[in-house]
């Protein structure tokens, strides 16, 4: 992984420091397309008696609904449903797309195909977006005064801790996801390079590879679930009394 480069376009549109990682663009687009296809084909020819994919998607809807309901009442939480299901599906699929294989160009070792969530920029973007949204809805639904007062609860002297907490929440939300997925990618890369190096390596690395891929599926699902859960927990902290 260390000797693998990324397909970066430096200074996009001539803006200094505005770099673009084409791998992330590709993988996010692929993930989003997969999520959209899942949704679109589930919702095609809807029936009163659900069958097949419609059942799956309805189960997903109920799953997200239940998570929201555990943190806040459904009347308040209904507006966050779209955010919840989109973030869950996108992160889940992003976690999954990196598992089966990785595409690296031969001549300059540039990584094209990997989990986009194994990049801290992407995970932090999602984390900051979620935290900004919680603050936005906190102010919108409780008013600026109540929102401000929350920083002095439960005790006024806890104000500095509350401020630190906000940053810590953001950082941990993004970094947890990144860390898990990055570790997954590194180990998969190591096992893959070991397996590809020689016959002995293939024999030795084969079984751990399969085990680690299975575990990666588990990690990916758990991390998507945790991200969704924490999103709703932070949201309810801000919008509920």
């Amino acid at each position, binding site marked *: 992984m260390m000797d693998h480069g990324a397909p970066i376009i430096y200074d996009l549109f001539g803006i200094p420091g*505005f*770099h673009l*990682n084409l791998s992330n663009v590709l993988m*996010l687009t692929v993930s989003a397309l997969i999520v*959209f296809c899942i*949704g*679109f084909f589930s*919702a095609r020819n809807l029936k009163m008696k659900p069958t097949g994919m419609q059942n799956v998607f309805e189960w997903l809807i109920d799953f997200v609904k239940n998570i929201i309901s555990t943190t806040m009442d459904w009347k308040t939480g209904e507006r966050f449903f779209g955010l919840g299901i989109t973030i869950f599906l996108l992160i889940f699929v992003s976690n999954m797309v990196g598992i089966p294989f990785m595409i690296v160009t031969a001549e300059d070792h540039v990584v094209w195909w990997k989990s*986009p969530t194994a990049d801290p920029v*992407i995970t932090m973007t999602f984390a900051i977006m979620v935290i900004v949204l919680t603050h936005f809805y906190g102010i919108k639904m409780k008013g600026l005064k109540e929102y401000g007062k929350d920083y002095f609860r439960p005790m006024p002297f806890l104000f500095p801790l509350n401020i630190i907490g906000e940053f810590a929440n953001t950082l941990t939300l993004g970094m947890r996801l990144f860390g898990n997925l990055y570790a997954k990618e590194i180990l998969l890369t190591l096992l893959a390079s070991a397996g590809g190096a020689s016959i002995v390596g293939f024999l030795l690395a084969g079984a751990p590879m399969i085990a680690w891929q299975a575990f990666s599926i588990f990690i990916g699902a758990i991390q998507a679930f945790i991200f969704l859960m924490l999103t709703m927990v932070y949201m309810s902290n801000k919008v509920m009394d």
Partner: protein
Amino acid sequence: MGTITWADSLFSLIMFIILLLLLRKFAWGPIMNMMKEREEHIANEIDTAEKNRKEAEQYLEQQKEEINRAREEAQQIIETARKTSEVQGEEILSSARAEAERVKANALAEIEREKDLAVQELREQVGTLSVMIATKIIEKELDEKEQEKLIEEYVKEAGERL
């Protein structure tokens, strides 16, 4: 690594928003509508079933009432018939009794009349018979004079008695 790719942030944000809108339009929007519709449908079905059940119960109640009424009516009819028959029987009995009374009275009157007739006849015969007997006795024991006196006396007496 090392360089922060800020454009990725912007791209992923835009991608996220587009995906959210598309999913709402094409995936969970319609599916949730369908779920809501189904919920309503089920609620409606339950309501209808409940209504039907209530109606059936009502009909059953009505039927029961109807049957009870019919039974009461039948009872009433039987009662009336019994009463009528009793009255009629009474009437028949009393008329029969009156008839019997009348027949009996007639018979009694007849008997009285027959008795009177018989008594009269008897008296006549007794008179004749006694005269004949007396004649026979007197023929033997009395003389002419005495006989005549006696006859006269008897005749007189018989004439007084009759």
